[in-house]
């Protein structure tokens, strides 16, 4: 691992490069060096630590590049230290990574004089040939890149060329946009004391740093790389080594689920042991359930409706809390209103529950937060026991909400005698398997990350599902749009042909839930509809990779009614990695807050 720095601007190049090298020292420091470019190119480099390197203050230098090295090709010596130059000494290059075909390139460069044993040194000589043939530095770098094999990041200067040219191929490179010039670094630490406005280069990018701006090209096309502000104070400490809270929370789900179901499964009786204080006779008599919730909790409510209507034989409606109105036609004494809210403070949901109470209905809260406002306003509370969630994008709380509601549905079903002990055992067995099923999805993260990488640049993402997978499709789309800012929609699988199919193109991947719990054959027909329009299809299925019209299959453990819930975890990871590829501020998406306490 090596570190690269660069600077162009009105500041003092020598000292800025030196401080950048010092900051990158952790990337290796068996030798270091800089090239300062003014009327001529002056290279100062030597073996040893950065502190041992003296860089004279060259006031006429307008820009420069620096390097701190950890040897891969060639010993740490003065000659092998970067920057490397061509035969004329007009071109200087620093490089991080490995050029795997440098031996072959070196042979092709007969006549050039090499001073080091490094793979890097072929680059300035290749540039020299291109520039001699009439190319400018940027064009020369672009052409030379075509001949280099390996993974690397590099930066180059030429005495007669205004600015620095840098390129990235599989090794990191970041640009800092300062008030007094532009900075280049292997990572943000190189220049974070000068500026926090950064843009991240992507693989294949060639960028030209001017004193006041950058231009970026990829595959010959001019491209824009978003300028972001890095929040360096964000307490990385709380993330236990994860890059984001969201990633940490995704990985906490197996344990959170074990907590959530602990002591709540009575497999001998085939019943859920829930501490429900509501009167049994009331629960036996209810003929309607209203679920009110917002956002992710609303999707958990939709999932619960599927379970409640099937298992409890009671009419269930799910309302967005902000839209919930109690109109005529309800027997309010025989209606249970269930409010689902992670925080217990969601203003829309609190307001809905107050309207329900005012009309005489009995209320139950399903929440994660002991002592929250809603627990004081409702008749009874069922806690989801997921533990604290910090990432704005709800992950483990969604899974825990659905799990708690599935246990509630089992409990109600046993109470109302619509679920037999035998059926109860089989539902609870699925609940019991949930933590391990989620873990097996997490174990496949590498594959999901590669899929996300493949489709990051898509125009839009569509999620389709049927039955309990429909709310999960909505939830998966919400997750992706929240954190990646990309266009994503969830549709009921059968609804696609009634309109949304018009949006489907070959650049809009469709993620389809082929859950066994709701007519997978019919969903498969919907998949064929999109496949014939050329859209890439990612299937989530228990049957393995046998579907020929799926471009990719993510295998989901077969755990009955809860299968879509496990599939949701795969798509949490998908959304996370799409957003991560795009360098989004995943834990703090723009314009969003964790719990919304205004209506």
């Amino acid at each position, binding site marked *: 691992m090596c570190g690269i720095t660069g600077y162009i601007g009105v500041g003092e190049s020598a000292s800025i490069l030196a401080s950048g090298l010092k900051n990158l*020292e952790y990337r290796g420091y068996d030798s270091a060096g800089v090239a300062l470019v003014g009327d001529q190119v002056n290279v100062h480099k030597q073996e040893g630590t950065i502190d041992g390197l003296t860089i004279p203050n060259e006031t006429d230098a307008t820009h420069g590049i620096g390097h701190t090295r*950890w040897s891969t090709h060639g010993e740490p010596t003065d000659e092998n230290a970067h920057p490397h130059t061509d035969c004329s000494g007009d071109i200087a290059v620093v490089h991080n990574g490995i050029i795997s075909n440098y031996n072959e390139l070196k042979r092709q460069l007969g006549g050039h004089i090499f001073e080091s044993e490094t793979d890097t040194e072929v680059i300035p000589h290749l540039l020299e040939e291109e520039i001699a043939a009439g190319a400018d530095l940027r064009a020369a770098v672009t052409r030379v890149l075509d001949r280099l094999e390996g993974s690397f990041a590099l930066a180059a200067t030429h005495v007669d060329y205004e600015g620095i040219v840098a390129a990235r191929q599989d090794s990191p490179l970041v640009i800092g946009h300062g008030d007094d010039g532009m900075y280049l670094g292997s990572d943000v630490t190189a220049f974070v004391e000068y500026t926090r406005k950064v843009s991240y280069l992507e693989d294949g990018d060639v960028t030209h740093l001017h004193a006041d701006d950058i231009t970026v090209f990829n595959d010959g096309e001019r491209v824009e790389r978003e300028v972001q502000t890095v929040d360096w104070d964000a307490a990385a400490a709380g993330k*236990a*080594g994860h890059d984001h809270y969201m990633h940490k929370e995704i990985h906490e789900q197996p344990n959170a689920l*074990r907590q959530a*179901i*602990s*002591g709540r499964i009575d*497999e001998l009786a085939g019943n859920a042991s829930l501490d429900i204080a509501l009167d049994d006779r009331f629960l036996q008599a209810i003929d309607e359930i209203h679920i009110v919730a917002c956002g992710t909790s609303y999707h958990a409510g939709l999932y619960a409706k599927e379970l409640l209507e099937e298992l409890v034989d009671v009419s269930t409606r799910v309302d967005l809390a902000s839209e919930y109105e109690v109109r005529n036609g309800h027997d309010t004494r025989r209606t249970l209103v269930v409010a689902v809210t992670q925080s217990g403070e969601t203003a829309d949901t609190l307001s809905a529950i107050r309207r329900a109470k005012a009309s005489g209905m009995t209320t139950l809260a399903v929440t994660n937060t002991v002592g929250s406002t809603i627990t004081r306003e409702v008749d009874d509370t069922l806690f989801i026991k997921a533990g604290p969630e910090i990432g704005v994008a709800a992950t483990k709380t969604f899974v825990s909400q659905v799990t708690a509601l599935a246990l509630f549905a089992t409990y109600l079903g046993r109470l109302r005698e619509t679920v037999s002990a035998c059926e109860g055992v089989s539902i609870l067995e699925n609940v019991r398997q949930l933590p391990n099923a989620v873990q097996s999805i997490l174990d496949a993260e590498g594959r999901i990350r590669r899929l996300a990488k493949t489709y990051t640049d898509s125009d839009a993402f569509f999620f389709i599902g049927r039955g309990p997978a429909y709310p999960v499709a909505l939830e998966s789309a919400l997750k992706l749009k929240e954190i990646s800012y990309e266009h994503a929609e969830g549709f009921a699988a059968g609804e696609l042909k009634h309109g949304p199919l018009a949006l489907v193109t070959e650049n809009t991947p469709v993620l389809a839930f082929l859950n066994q719990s709701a007519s997978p054959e019919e969903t498969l027909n919907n998949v064929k509809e999109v496949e014939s329009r050329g859209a890439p299809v990612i299937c989530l299925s228990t049957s393995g990779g046998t579907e020929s019209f799926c471009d990719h299959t993510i295998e989901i453990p077969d755990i009955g009614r809860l299968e879509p819930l496990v599939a949701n975890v795969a798509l949490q990871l998908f959304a996370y990695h799409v957003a991560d590829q795009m360098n989004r501020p995943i834990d703090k998406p723009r314009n969003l807050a964790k719990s919304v306490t205004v209506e």
Partner: protein
Amino acid sequence: MKAVILAAGEGVRLAPLTATRPKGMLPIGGKPLLEHIIESVTATGIDDIVLVVGHKRERIQSHFQNGEDWDAEIQYVVQENPRGTGDALLEAEHVVSGDCIVINGDRIVEPELIERLIERHRATNQACLAITEVEDPTQYGTVTVEVDRVTDIKEKPAEHEIRSNLVNIGVYAFGPDIFAAIRRTDHYGELRLTDTLREFIDDHPIHAVRYDGMWLELSRPWDLLSVNNGILARSDSVVADSAVVSEDATLGDPVVVGEHSRIQPGARVFRDVVIGDNVTVGANAVVTNAVVLEDTVIKPGAVVTDCVIGAGSEIGSLTAIEGGHSDVLLDDELYTDVRFGGLVGDNVEMSANVTVEPGTIVGNDVRVESGSTLAGHVPSGTHVFRG
């Protein structure tokens, strides 16, 4: 002083369990191996811990978080590819300023050893290395010592090369000069810490700290049983508060029953058994000398002996893992007469009446039809029919 624990390795000899989890997360006496190491470290008063993680690191991070539960501050450093213990330590350089204790993440030692290393390091301000005497040093790094100074280190010596029965335990105290020494080390492929130390001796003294206390190392599947038994022998049985044990079940001693697990009526859990979280032991099942990982179900009437069972698996009714001794071929090496009833991976679905012969290693995600007999190695993902 900080402690650096090297926990990035893949532990390939413990496959298939290490395909989905790092070696350090394998359970020893009801908690992960790494937790024992961390507790030994914190018992010496060190609360600044650096974990070098890599393979399946999320499992480690989810368990230890930032160390609050151990009154420690845990920092994570990632070694992306397994490139040896020297390289792993180098990854920790930017968070370790000054002296450090370094511990290989696959062995349990007592706090006393770490204290003695710290003492010796304070007194000499030079590198220190812990050694112990073993009968057969061929599997370890042997250390030649003259008057408490290390004069040579040899990795896995052949019989005729053995000049000492003293071996390197893999616990060290270093000053900051170790990092430069690692960078200078010539190496092909992996950069091992011992390669550095062998060269280091030429111009720096290394002090040997002799240790005769408990030292448990985990490298082959049956070690998981013996290491567990070693730890269980030193502690009382533990049944988690959240576990549900039927009044009609028998719990022997020593045993560990994890959180949220259920032991059904008539089940007999005899000695030397470690049961993980959310495990079900069915009615009339008999479990002896076994390690059962989380979320697994042992169905009614199954007999499980001398074996390790992965997570999320199902051992069918009346299935017999009878246990006993056998010869096991592992990594092209034949181990004879090992007491090892078998290893079953994660997410294995075994139907009723399966017979598992001693020494069998069943991969992950294997499905076994009822009435089958398993022996030798069953690769991951296989579907076994009754033949």
